[in-house]
C-alpha cells in the first residue's frame, strides 16, 4: 500500500486497504471472542442454585460481550500489522514514510468509548448490588448464625429451633440471612453455587443473604487462607423441601435434647 502524502485529498481513511482489512477481521473475530469467552467461562461456573448466582452468570455474559469488541479491535489491528510486510535481519527497516504522531479524532473516540463502557459496567454493577443487598433486609427471611473456626464451619439456627449443626440444611425458595463470624482467624464463607461470599471476621458479625432456588447438595468452601488445613475447610449445604427441612430440624432438636 502506498500513500500519496502530498495529495490534497487523500483516500478517505475508511477506504484504505489496511483499514478495510482490520474492519473485516474485527467483524469476524468479535463474535468469536464474545462467544468463546462467554461460553467457556459460563460453562465452567456450572448451574446456578440461586437467583444471585444466575444474575452473576448473566453479568459475566454481559461484561464479556461488552469487552469483546474492544478486544476484537486490538486483535484485528495487531493482526493487520502482523500481516503487513515484515523485516528481518540486523539492520532496521526504512523508517515509516509518514510518522503519525497523533490523531485527535482517534484519541477522542477511544477515550469516549472507553468512558461509556466504564459507565455501562458501573451502572450494571450498581443495579445488581442494589438487588442483592435488598435481600439482606427481607423481614420474612430465616436467620442462621455461621461460625468459622480452624477448620470447620458450624451453623446456629436462631429462628426459634435453637439447633446447632456442622452441616447446613436450607429449605428451598426461602430467603435466608447469614450472620457470619469467626472465633479465631479470618475465614471467608462461600456457598459456591449460590454465588455468595462474606468474610468471617473474629470479633465482628458480617451479613450476607440468599434464596436457594434449587433442591440439591452444594459446596461451602473457605475462601480466605486460614492456616494449616484451609484447603479442607469445606462441607456441603443441603437444599431440601420445606417438609424435609422441618423433619430435619425436628430430628436435630431431639438429638440435641438426647445428648444434652
Amino acid at each position, binding site marked *: 500500500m502506498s500513500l500519496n*502524502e502530498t495529495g490534497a485529498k487523500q483516500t478517505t481513511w475508511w477506504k484504505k486497504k489496511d483499514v478495510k482489512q482490520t474492519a473485516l477481521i474485527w467483524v469476524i473475530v468479535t463474535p468469536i471472542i464474545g462467544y468463546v469467552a462467554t461460553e467457556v467461562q459460563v460453562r*465452567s461456573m456450572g448451574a446456578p442454585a440461586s437467583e444471585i*448466582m444466575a444474575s452473576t452468570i448473566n453479568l459475566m455474559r454481559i461484561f464479556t460481550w461488552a469487552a469483546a469488541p474492544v478486544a476484537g479491535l486490538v486483535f484485528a489491528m495487531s493482526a493487520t500489522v502482523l500481516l503487513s510486510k515484515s523485516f528481518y535481519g540486523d539492520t532496521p527497516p526504512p*523508517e515509516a514514510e509518514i510518522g503519525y504522531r*497523533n490523531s485527535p479524532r482517534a484519541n477522542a473516540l477511544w477515550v469516549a468509548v*472507553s468512558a461509556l463502557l466504564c459507565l455501562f459496567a458501573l451502572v450494571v454493577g450498581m443495579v*445488581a448490588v442494589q438487588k442483592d443487598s435488598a435481600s439482606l433486609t427481607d423481614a420474612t427471611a430465616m436467620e442462621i448464625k455461621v461460625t468459622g473456626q480452624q477448620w470447620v464451619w458450624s451453623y446456629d439456627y436462631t429462628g426459634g429451633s435453637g439447633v446447632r449443626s456442622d452441616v447446613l440444611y436450607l429449605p428451598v425458595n426461602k430467603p435466608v440471612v447469614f450472620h457470619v463470624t469467626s472465633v479465631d482467624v479470618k475465614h471467608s464463607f462461600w456457598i459456591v453455587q449460590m454465588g*455468595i461470599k*462474606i468474610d468471617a471476621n473474629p470479633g465482628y458479625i458480617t451479613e450476607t443473604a440468599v434464596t436457594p432456588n434449587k433442591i440439591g447438595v452444594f459446596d461451602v468452601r473457605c475462601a480466605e*487462607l486460614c492456616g494449616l488445613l484451609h484447603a479442607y475447610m469445606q462441607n456441603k449445604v443441603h437444599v431440601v423441601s420445606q417438609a424435609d427441612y422441618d423433619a430435619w430440624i425436628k430430628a436435630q432438636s431431639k438429638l440435641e435434647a438426647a445428648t444434652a
Partner: protein
Amino acid sequence: MTTTLNRPSASAHSAPKRALIERLNIFTALALGVISAVVVWRLALQFLPQDSEEAIFFNREDKITLLSMIAWFIGFMVGIGALIGPFRWVMGKDLSHDENMFYAGKDLGVKRYFRYTTDHKVVGIQYLVVTVVIFFIGGVLAMLIRTNLGNPEGGWIHPQAYNAIVGTHGIVMIVATIIMVTGPFGNFIMPIMIGARDMAFPRLNALSLWLIVAAAAPILWGLAIGGISTGWTAYNPLASQAPLGQNGYIMFICIFAISTMVAGANITTTVIRMRAKGMTWNRTPIFIYGVVASVALALPAFPVFFLSQIMSAMDRAIGTSFYDAQHGGSGWLYENLFWLMGHPEVYVILIPAVAALMEMAPVFTRNPLFSFNLAVIGIAGISGLSALVWAHHMYMSGWAPLLNIPFMLTTELISIPTGMLFLVLIGTLWRGRLWVTMPMASVFALLWNFMIGGVTGIYLSDIPADAFLHGSMYVTAHFHYTLMGAGLTGAIAALVFWFPKMTGRIFDAKLSWISFWMVQIGFQIAFIGMFLVGLAGQPRRVEGYAETFNTGNMVTTGGAYLIMAGMLVLLYALIHSWMNGEKASMNPWHSKTLEWTVANPIPLENFDVLPTVTTDAYGYGKEIR
C-alpha cells in the same frame, strides 16, 4: 574471606587510614552480619525473661528471632560499608574526589560488583543479578506449588510446608517484579537516557541495592523456621499465630520498604533535576515517565506497608493488639494498611514494564510513538487513581459495605487510562515497518496478556461478580496475567533490548525467541487452566482440592512446566550471551534515545560533554503533525 586488595594504581595515592574501610565487600558484610546475628541471638537467649503464663503465643522466641534479624541487618550494612559516607561526614572528613572515584568503582575491575559501589551502572548490573536470583528462587517455589497441585491423588508436601512455600513464592515474586524494571534499567539506563553522569544521590543508590540483599536473608532464614504460612498478604490475626518464620516476612518487608523509599526519592530527584539541557518534559522519553510514576507511587505506598509490619511485629513479639479484635484492635485495620500499599504496588510493577515496551515499539516499527501526550496522561491517570482503589480487595471483608460502590467506581475508572496505554501501543504499531525481533513480539504478547488481565480485572471489580470470584483461583490467574503476562514480558523484552548497552554484547536472538514462545504458550495453558478451575469454584492457596478440579490443575501444572523450561532457556541465554555473545555496536537497534550515543563499554561518567537535546526521541518518518 577478606583478602588484601591488590590495587597498585589506587593505593599509591590513598592514605593508609583508608585501608580498612576499602577492604569492605560482600564477604565482610556476610561475615559481620552472621557474627552479629549469632552474638545477639546468644545474648537474647541468655538475658530475655521467660514468657509469663498468660502469653498465648511464643513471644520470647519472636523477640529473640527479631532481635537476631535486626542484628544481622545492621551487621551486614556496616560490613558492606554503607556507613562510611555518613561516618566520615560526622567526623568532619568528608570524602575527597579521589575517594569518591574509588567508591564509584574506578579501576576496580570485577571487584566493584561485590562492593558498595556508587556508580549507577554497577548498581544496575547488581540489581539485574539480584533480580534474576530472586526470580530463580520464586520460580523454584512456584514449581513446587504446581508439582504438588498437579497430583490429584493428594500433595506430597506437608500442608505446613506447602503454605510456607505459597507465602514465600508470593512475596518473593512481588519483590522481584517490583524491582525488575526500575532496578536494573531504572538504574543503569535511566540516567544515561536523560543525559546525566550518575544518579542524584549515588550513595543512596548503592544503599537501596544492598538493603535488598540484606533483606533477602530473613526470608530464607524464615523458610528454615516455619516459613511464611500466611500468603503474601500476611493477614492478621493469622499472621500473629503463624510460626516464627513470619518474623522473616516482617523484617524483610521493613528493610525492603526502606530500600524502595530510598530508591524512589533518588530516582525522582534524578529525573526532576538532572535531565540534559533541552530535555523538556515533552522531550523526555516515555520510559522515564514510567519509571518515575512507578517509584513516585511507591513513595507514599511503602511507608504504610512498613508501619503495618511494625505493628504486626509488636502484636507478635510484645503482645500489643493493633489487629486483635478481642482486645480493641481490628483485622480490618491491617487489611486497609496492607492494601493502601498493595494496590498502588501492582501499578508500581506494571507501569514501568509497559513504558519500557512503549519505548521499544517505536524503535521496532520505525514509527513515532503514537500520541505521547495520551501516554503521559494514561500513566498519570493510572498512578493517581491507583491510590483510591485499595478497598476493592475488601469488598467481601464486611468492612464498610457502603463504601463498596465508590470503590467500584474508582476501580472501573482505571480502565480509561489503561485503555489509553493500549491506544498508544496499537497506534504506534499501526502502519509501522515491523522489524521482527523478540522485543517487538513482546509488544504483541503484552497486548494479548494485558487485554485478558484487564478484562478479567473488570469482572473482579464488579461487586456481585466478585462475590463469586473473590478468593478463588480466578484472582490468582488474573494477577498473573497482569504482573507476569504483561509485567514480566515487558521486563524480559527490556533485558533483551538494553542488554547490548549494559554488557556490550548482543543477547542471543535465537534462544530469546525459543524462550519467548515456550514461556508465552506455557503461560496461556497454565493460566487459562487456572481461570477455569477458579470459575468452577477452586479457592486459591489450597493444598488439596475436590475431584472436579483434577483436569484443570493438571493442565495448569503442564503449562507451568513449559514456562519453567522456557525460563531456563532464557537463563542459559542470559549467561551464555553475557560470557561470549557477539560484541555489540554502539547502537545496534538504531534507536534515537541518548543511552545509545555513549560508547561501549560506557565510560565511568557516561558523557565527556553533557548532551544537549533539541527534539524528542521519536522522530521516525516524515512528520506530518
